[in-house]
């Protein structure tokens, strides 16, 4: 593990423990009761899912323009995090929905476009894994579609009929809900940055292995 990892991991773990304590102390929501506490991990992971989609899309677009391997590594790393945080959001969401809405899933615009975004991330990873030479550019093109879907996922609840809460809920959070929520957002953001750096580091090491093989063949 790189030298910076231990410090960041300790800070991240401390933030998560603090977030969990504040989540436990947070009041129950009037209509949803206990199950609303899923919100404190569901929404930050959904935000990280969208952030990963944007990072992957921007670095892919820049990679297609100037072919820098650094940007390709960043895109690949963020695609993996997109799938990870997307899976968390897509699993915790239905667990919350089952109690609050009475159904596990609804084919409304927010949920459907989120699933589509996650599937684009999975497709990106499959292309990188199995499509062979040239898969980097093919996957970069796919990432652009994934990024175009991100604003659609975010604003869809404000424009289409849905029972998913609108985006106005988070800015209007009272302090008792806001403190654990933003603490959780900070923990997830730090975790996202740490995992992204670690995944990029893995790709750098793989590139080093490739160059070592080349020098051995020469």
């Amino acid at each position, binding site marked *: 593990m790189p030298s910076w990892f231990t410090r960041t991991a300790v800070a991240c773990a401390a933030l998560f423990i603090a977030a969990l304590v504040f989540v436990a102390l947070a009041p129950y929501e009037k209509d949803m009761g206990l199950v609303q506490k899923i919100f404190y991990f569901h929404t930050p992971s959904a935000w990280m899912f969208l952030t990963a989609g944007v990072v992957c899309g921007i670095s892919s677009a820049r990679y297609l323009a100037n072919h820098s391997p650094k940007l390709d590594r960043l895109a690949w790393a963020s695609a993996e995090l997109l799938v990870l945080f997307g899976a968390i959001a897509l699993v915790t969401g239905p667990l919350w929905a089952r109690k609050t809405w009475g159904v596990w899933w609804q084919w409304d615009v927010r949920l459907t476009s989120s699933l589509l975004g996650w599937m684009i991330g999975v497709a990106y990873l499959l292309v990188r894994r199995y499509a062979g030479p040239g898969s980097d550019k093919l996957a970069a093109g796919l990432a652009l579609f994934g990024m175009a879907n991100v604003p659609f996922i975010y604003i869809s609840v404000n424009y289409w009929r849905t029972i*998913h809460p609108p985006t106005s809920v988070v800015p209007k959070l009272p302090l008792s*809900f806001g403190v654990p929520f933003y603490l959780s957002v900070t923990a997830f953001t730090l975790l996202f940055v740490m995992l992204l750096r670690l995944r990029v580091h893995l790709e750098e*090491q793989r590139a080093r292995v490739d160059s070592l093989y080349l020098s051995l063949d020469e």
Partner: protein
Amino acid sequence: MAASSVGLSAALFVVMSIGSPAAGAPAAVQVLPPPLMLPVRAELQSQPSPSAQKPPEEFEAISEIPPDERMPAAPMVVAAYAFVMLALFAYLLSLARRLGAVKQDISRLESELKRNGRT
């Protein structure tokens, strides 16, 4: 001819005197005779108003969970938090394994290069 038109007028009078169309019913529904409208009216009345379907605008705090909601919610919350922790731990473990394998490759290749005298 005259008898049939008198019969039709009488039938129309009877139909119109039974009741007027429901207020707020669509135009297509209002042209139906009232006996045919009854099921439609009942259906319209059974639908919740649009304001009842509105999603919540903000969260509101209460001091404790309503008693009827205590048991079913707990397994969902525990499952959600457990899944988050497991997924993150599994990913971190997979990253550590992949990094370990790559590090091993690097040290093996570097020692091989040194043996061949090409550092």
